[in-house]
């Protein structure tokens, strides 16, 4: 691998401290090393993923056997009377579960899993930088996210319980204790999200600066891996969307706390103004939650298919296009809100148009698999799972984007199915793919291929059995956030479907234990990983596994080509690292 001696200012970032010298606490707790921070985010957000999953299980139990004394909530006895009384969940607690499941999964699980973990870990490694532009800010961003999460969890145990106005916190239910019975919980919700917002914000500043300024020699914009491209656009979305949410949350907090009336009609406030502010942030947020996964999947598909990604430029422009159009579609969340119908018509069209870039990406993924020489390693399976499930999530979006069809479907389980096909079938499968793919680089050990494949198969099956029937529940008219569907006579015939869904949801949850074991066990027991176990091209694979502090030990790699030169005719092997000048000779085939 050809390198150049690094100019002083380049590795001033990381390499000015030699990590032998760093004491444990500075190295693993208050570390400024982007890799350690990424790993810290990984453990934090996996924990919150578990919490959010548990909340979902409790909800599913209530939905399958609503207030049924013969089916008491398992473990309900340990919960205080204000949540569960003799095995039966209280409606206000159910609403708190709905709210906190959404909030925790979106803000503390999926968002950090995609951005906090991989933007930190991958960007410097994929652009050949020794570290982030502002390592101390980077550390601050993590150590702001932790207290935010703790505040959010703490709100369960305060007077009145956790926020229960939904993860969208619609005024006026969220602004008035009289209506919701919750004050402190809702205040903590606001404060926690503002802190987390600031954390993501300084993260985004860091990622953007790093990407613009610290790319290795030869690494032009159109030689960046799609992961990095997606993370760049995502950072821009975070940078510009999160402040709007912060402003809205602050006004909401004032409405709750000092009795202002920004969103309360008593004083001329506008409940719809909150919805506009929230969704002006919220829709870019939706793309924040899917774009990085699209990036990882593109990289992994190319690697698994041993083929250049199909239509690289189209893929980049699709990401950028989503980043632009994503700002003018937020109104489709408000079709039934009493919004001006003319505006509804406008948002309908923009929303349908944004389907185009997503379609482009899907077709390009198909094109990537076509004519490949596919290796079905675990990351590849997750990536393929992403593609097949994201298609369903994307297509069900068309129903909801078409206003008239949205009328019966809005706020029903059809929406729940849609969001979970995108966020679980999409984002979470992308996350599984990314974790299994970069695990060797992160920890220097391999995860078990066999366990990975079993986990993939079971998750794929139980996921579909859990969420596909929700489309039927929804078009059958079952509303979201419904504590007890059997209250509605016309929903009673669907109750058996709810039981079926709950059973599969429990199995889906149980399946994740396989992943947890695979992840934790191999931290110590996994077989040692080579520098480039997947025979991949991008820069991170030219660093040692795991890379030292400073990543390339005081040198920066020179980039000679794009990241997708798999099976190039001039190369003897079916891959050609970005740093190599000459084509490599075929290495011994890796065991699969």
């Amino acid at each position, binding site marked *: 691998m050809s390198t150049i001696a690094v100019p002083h200012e380049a590795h001033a970032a990381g390499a000015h401290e030699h990590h032998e010298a760093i004491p444990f606490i500075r190295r693993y707790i208050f570390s400024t090393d982007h890799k350690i921070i990424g790993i810290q985010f990984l453990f934090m957000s996996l924990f919150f993923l578990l919490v959010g999953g548990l909340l979902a299980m409790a909800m599913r139990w209530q939905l399958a056997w609503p207030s049924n004394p013969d089916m008491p909530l398992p473990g309900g006895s340990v919960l205080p009377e204000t949540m569960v009384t003799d095995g039966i969940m209280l409606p206000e607690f159910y609403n708190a579960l709905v709210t906190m499941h959404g909030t925790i999964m979106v803000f503390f699980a999926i968002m950090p899993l995609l951005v906090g973990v991989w933007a930190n870990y991958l960007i410097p490694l994929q652009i050949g930088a020794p570290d982030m532009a502002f390592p101390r800010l980077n550390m601050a961003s993590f150590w702001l996210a932790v207290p935010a999460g703790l505040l959010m969890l703490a709100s369960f145990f305060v007077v009145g319980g956790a926020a229960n106005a939904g993860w969208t916190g619609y005024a006026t239910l969220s602004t008035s204790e009289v209506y919701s019975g919750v004050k402190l919980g809702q205040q903590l919700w606001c404060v926690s999200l503002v802190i987390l917002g600031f954390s993501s914000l300084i993260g985004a500043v860091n990622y953007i600066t790093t990407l613009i300024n610290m790319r290795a020699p030869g690494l032009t914009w159109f030689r960046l891996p799609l992961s990095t491209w997606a993370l760049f656009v995502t950072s821009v979305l975070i940078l510009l969307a999160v402040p709007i949410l912060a402003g809205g949350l602050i006004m909401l907090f004032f409405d709750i706390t000092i009795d202002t009336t920004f969103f309360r009609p008593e004083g001329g406030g506008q409940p719809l103004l909150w919805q506009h502010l929230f969704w002006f942030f919220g829709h870019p947020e939706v793309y924040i939650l899917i774009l990085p996964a699209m990036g990882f999947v593109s990289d992994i598909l190319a690697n698994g*298919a041993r*083929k250049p990604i199909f*239509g690289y430029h*189209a893929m980049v422009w699709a990401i950028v296009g989503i980043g632009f159009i994503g700002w003018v579609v937020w109104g489709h969340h408000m079709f*039934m809100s009493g919004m001006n119908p003319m505006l509804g018509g406008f948002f309908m069209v923009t929303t349908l148009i944004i389907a185009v870039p997503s379609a482009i990406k899907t077709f390009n993924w198909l094109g990537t698999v076509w004519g490949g020489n596919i290796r*079905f390693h675990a990351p590849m399976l997750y990536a393929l799972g992403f593609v*097949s499930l994201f298609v369903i999530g994307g297509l069900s979006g068309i129903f909801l984007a078409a206003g008239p069809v949205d009328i*019966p479907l809005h*706020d029903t389980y059809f929406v729940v199915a849609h969001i979970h096909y995108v966020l679980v079938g999409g984002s979470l499968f992308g996350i599984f793919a990314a974790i299994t793919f970069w695990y060797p680089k992160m920890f220097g050990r391999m995860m078990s291929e066999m366990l990975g494949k079993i986990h993939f198969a079971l998750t794929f099956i139980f996921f579909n059995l859990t969420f596909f029937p929700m489309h039927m529940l929804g078009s059958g008219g079952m509303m979201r956030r419904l*504590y007890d569907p059997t209250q509605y006579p016309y929903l009673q015939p669907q109750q058996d479907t709810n039981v079926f869904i709950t059973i599969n949801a429990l199995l889906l949850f149980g399946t994740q234990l396989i992943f947890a074991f695979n992840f934790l066990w191999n931290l110590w027991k996994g077989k040692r990983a080579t520098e480039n176990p997947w025979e991949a091209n991008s820069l991170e694979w030219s660093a040692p596994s795991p890379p030292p502090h400073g990543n390339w030990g005081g040198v920066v790699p020179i980039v000679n080509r794009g990241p997708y030169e798999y099976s190039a005719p001039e190369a003897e092997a079916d891959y050609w690292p970005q740093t190599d000048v000459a084509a490599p000779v075929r290495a011994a085939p890796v065991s699969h």
Partner: protein
Amino acid sequence: MDGFWRLPQNIATFGGDIDRMFIIIAWITGIVFVAVEALLLFYLIKYRGKPGRKAVFTHGNSRLEIIWTTATALIVVVIGIMSRGLWLDIKDPRRFPEPGLELRITAKQFEWNVTYPGADGQLDTADDFVKRNQLHVPVNVPVKVDLESEDVIHSFYLPELRLKQDAVPGMTIEAWFEATEPGAYTVGCAELCGLGHYRMRGSMTVYAGTEWDTWYQQEIQAVAAAAGGAAPLAGVEGDAAPPADVAAAHVH
């Protein structure tokens, strides 16, 4: 197909168009879905890794990409145009048909209060009367409702009428529907509105022409009898709308 999707019975004049669009989109997306997944599966089997073989080395195909981009764009634009017209017919007050009956529905935690115009057919007059959680309408008559809320956001949801519209505090939102079949149906709340959200349920009764007149006259008499119809809120009835008979009378 709508059996598969379990769409509720449709008794709305515009419901047929909505269901038709639903089915059209279901076909389009269904075909795309099957095509993509089948193709994916086929490629995975056909191009599974074999030692010694090398993958096709291509960076893409501009013509192909232009074709599928424009194709997708065309489809979604067509869907967009189709939906926009229907959307405005249903939601834009300027396009509402001349109403045969005007009601005000005031939502509050956790009930729907329906104000009927009374003898003079005018709202906000002395002879208005209110029924809690009971919506009574004549068949084949365009009904216009003014939705209001006293506390939080609720969502006025009539599954069989393909109607859903939020009731927002501080706003008066107009909606309309025309039922085509007499019978007993459901009024639901589709927006999380507090701990009683799940039981914020009302009943809707659609009367054939003459039955409607008799029912309406009875109510007017009752109001007149009670306090001479002085207070607008006189004669609040039907607190005990027994869910049982709603369920019983509920015909699909």
